[in-house]
């Protein structure tokens, strides 16, 4: 198909679009509703003096339990107090007491959590012990005791409740601080000689800010609920107008005037609900990824523009591949991969990539981070993230499409026929790709039993043989070991054994040696080379290291910013690179360079060279 593209659409296009947390909260209907409710309550509380026609305790004995009229818009209670005025002043008392409770909890929990998390040691031990004691106390009994000892006061009971809530903040802060205590930027601050107080306030406090805000929204809701509950039971201070006291009053007169109960219940319910929802909305805004509706391939919006500029001919889904290409093990044609963004645009990470791999051949895909090499490999494996879309091109495996030309997702059903059986994968991080909960033997045997339909005993024999094949000296010992008991190089051998266990035709290795030490890397490369020769499989090797390419590959493809800039025979590309980017990469290799000489900044200062490098990067990205 013809690919006539304007310059500005070549390569990786589009930018990552993120929205501000506050905007995200307001865009979330749940968040918006809770903000509106809370703002309303705050306005009531702040303007209580203006909004309330009467003093909350002003009683008109001549007018009790009256329904609403022009003077008392919500009516009066059993001693003739204005319900509206009490509701408005109650908002002030209730909200202030909730803030007092949260304030006390933060004042105790936050600093102690910071200190315990940062220093650990004795303070940590003692405060943990105290927190455990506090948490084991039954809250309501403590509050009743406090009330019995010091009398009915909203404020004192809320201070007591705040102390009971402090352990929540303590634990939250302590855990967050422990996770950043050993971050490198904290080390850098220590080397700079910053005092501990400065390190805590400047570098560590920022990580606990968000969780504290979320926790506080919830704690305020809980405080209102507990306080109202106490007052409802008649344990509050009857001389102060709060929603809880009104609830108690309404309940006493439920048969005479049921509507008295409605207003405080509404106020309490709405406020607590809004606080909890707000907590959720903040968490969603800060932590979760945005939900983005992805336009269908070839549908309207930005996608349509892309489609028209690409001059893609109308095609119907065809199950047959182009004739003459069936013999290729894998053929990727004009592949494009993109991620839909919040504003409807698509960020393209792979653009117009074509290559093929035959049986018994090793193809290297080389590129720097962000060049789209792993995304290309993952689209062959069907392991792209859920929100990724194939925006152009097709992939065929052994003469059948795994991604047909007009599909926008990798067909998992079609691919699961191949994956694990005919296509296998060697990952970059050997340790994180073995499940720590199961023995290595179990993780090798299970797939073989499922895929090859052999008995467990037979699979076990095979697994031991495979471990021997990949150069593990004591197969039985490794078979019985858990992943944490073996070294990184050993774990990578195990994963290679797993990759060849079901006799695949194609192995995709994504930076298989990057996480390993150089000496171990050399051993693993030897292993991959031997196995590839012996089994005659096709291999796609994704790497950033030209040395690894030279060691293993027959052909090499160089990727930059989502595009394939050069491909060909490995000797040809490494010795006579045509593309300026390949030349630049090979020029950056240190092997064979005169030590202590400038690599890229001949005839200028290193700073100037750095500026120029940034500019060329930006130009490439802008393209």
């Amino acid at each position: 198909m013809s690919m006539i593209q304007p310059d500005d659409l070549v390569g990786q296009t589009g930018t990552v679009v993120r929205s501000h947390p506050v905007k995200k909260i307001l865009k979330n209907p749940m968040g918006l509703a809770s903000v509106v409710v809370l703002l309303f309550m705050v306005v009531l509380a702040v303007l209580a003096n203006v909004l309330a026609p009467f003093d909350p305790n002003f009683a008109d004995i001549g007018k009790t339990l009256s329904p609403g009229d022009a003077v008392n818009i919500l009516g009066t209670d059993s001693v003739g107090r204005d319900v509206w005025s009490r509701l408005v002043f109650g908002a002030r008392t209730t909200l202030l007491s909730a803030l007092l409770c949260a304030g006390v909890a933060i004042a105790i929990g936050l600093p102690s959590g910071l200190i315990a998390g940062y220093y650990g040691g004795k303070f940590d031990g003692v405060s943990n012990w105290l927190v455990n004691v506090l948490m084991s106390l039954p809250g309501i009994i403590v509050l009743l005791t406090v009330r019995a000892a010091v009398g009915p006061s909203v404020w004192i009971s809320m201070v007591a409740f705040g102390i009971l809530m402090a352990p929540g903040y303590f634990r939250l802060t302590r855990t967050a601080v422990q996770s950043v205590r050993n971050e490198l930027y904290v080390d850098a601050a220590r080397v700079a000689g910053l005092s501990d107080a400065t390190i805590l306030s400047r570098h560590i406090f920022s990580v606990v800010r968000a969780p504290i805000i979320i926790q506080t929204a919830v704690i305020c809701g809980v405080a209102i609920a507990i306080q109202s509950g106490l007052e409802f039971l008649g344990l509050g201070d009857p001389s102060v107008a709060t929603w809880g006291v009104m609830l108690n009053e309404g309940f006493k007169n439920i048969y005479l005037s049921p509507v008295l109960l409605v207003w405080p219940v509404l106020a309490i319910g709405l406020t607590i609900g809004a606080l909890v929802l707000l907590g959720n909305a903040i968490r969603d805004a800060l932590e979760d990824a945005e939900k983005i509706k992805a336009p269908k391939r070839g549908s309207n919006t930005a996608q349509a523009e892309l489609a028209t500029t690409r001059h893609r001919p109308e095609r119907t889904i065809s199950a047959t591949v182009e004739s003459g290409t069936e013999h290729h093990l894998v053929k990727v044609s004009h592949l494009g991969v993109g991620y839909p963004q919040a504003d409807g645009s698509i960020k393209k990470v792979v653009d117009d990539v074509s290559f093929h791999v035959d049986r018994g051949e090793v193809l290297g895909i080389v590129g720097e981070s962000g060049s789209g090499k792993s995304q290309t490999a993952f689209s062959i494996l069907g392991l792209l993230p859920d929100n990724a879309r194939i925006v152009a091109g097709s992939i065929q495996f052994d003469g059948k499409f795994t991604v047909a030309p007009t599909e926008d997702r990798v067909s998992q059903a079609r691919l699961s026929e191949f994956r694990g059986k005919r296509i296998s994968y060697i990952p970059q991080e050997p340790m994180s790709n073995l499940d720590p909960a199961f023995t290595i033997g179990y993780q090798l045997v299970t797939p073989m039993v499922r895929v090859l339909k052999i008995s467990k005993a037979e699979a076990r024999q095979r697994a031991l043989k495979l471990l021997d094949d990949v150069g593990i000296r004591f197969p039985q010992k490794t078979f019985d070991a858990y992943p944490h008991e073996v070294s990184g190089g050993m774990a990578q051998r195990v994963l290679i054994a797993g990759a060849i266990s079901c006799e695949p035709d194609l192995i995709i290795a994504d930076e298989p040696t990057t996480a390993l030490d150089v000496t171990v890397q050399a051993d693993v490369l030897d292993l991959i080379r031997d196995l590839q020769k012996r089994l005659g499989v096709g291999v796609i090797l994704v790497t950033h290291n030209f040395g690894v390419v030279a060691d293993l590959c027959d052909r090499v493809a160089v990727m930059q910013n989502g595009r394939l800039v050069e491909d060909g025979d490995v000797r040809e590309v490494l010795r006579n690179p045509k593309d300026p980017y390949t030349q630049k990469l090979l020029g950056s290799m240190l092997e064979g360079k005169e030590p202590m000489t400038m690599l890229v900044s001949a005839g200028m200062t290193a700073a100037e060279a750095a500026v120029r490098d940034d500019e060329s990067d930006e130009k490439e990205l802008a393209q």
Partner: protein
Amino acid sequence: MSAADVNTPAAGPDLLTVAGLDVEYPLKGFRRKPFRALTDININIKPGETLGLVGESGSGKTTLGRAVLGLAPVTSGTITFEGNDISHASRGERRSLGKDLQVVFQDPYTSLNPSLQIGDILSEPLRVQGQEPAVARKRVKELLDQVGLPSDALNRLPREFSGGQRQRVAIARALALSPKLIVCDEPVSALDLSTQAVVLDLFLQIQRDTGVSYLFVSHDLDVVRHISHRVAVMYHGEIVEQGTSEQVTREPRHPYTQRLLLASPVPDPDRQAKRRNDRHELLEAQRKAEMSGATA
């Protein structure tokens, strides 16, 4: 400036001397033997000199850098900086040391506080030393210039920069107080090849301009050879070989260094095939030597 100038650092007394250094980390549990990370380390660095420290993961090379910075517990031995023993320096002493002794860490993503602007990150060490805000601001602009970042970087956050640019910010932070020694802990291993070249050039340029010394920790023998005057090879918490860059990286004496040298692949299929053969022969020879050593 010719290569000959930089290859001959100033003679004279050592800037840093580490003698008989042991580092042990206590393990949890009653009367358990502590974990020994470093054993009997002896190194020295002269003003304007780079000592490359190479070894595999877990060999203790990072721990040595951290011990010099006061971030690892010194069990025995001494670390002398400009004639003063700093093995057990207090926080106050560290603060004044911070002027002369700085660090660039491996990971440019976690070594900069994500919530601080570049300007604040760079002025932090200056403010600790009590510099006036106006003077500090001027110095920060100079620093950005020195590492080739635009001056509008001041009000931006670390996440707006690429890995290489962040590492240059980290270098600028280390340079802020014009230190005499910078401990560089794998400063280029998280970077892409072409970015690595830019950052290595920057390290060399800074050394030429300011005469700073580096303790340059890396797992990559090619990087260490390129930037170092002398090289020390670490293996299992000990230094197994130490000498000039030329000698250690061309004609290594210790079996481990020999293996390390032949293990790193070269970007040409035929030369790499030869290197692979050499490596297999070396391994075979070493195995034989070990066997005969064991039987003898």
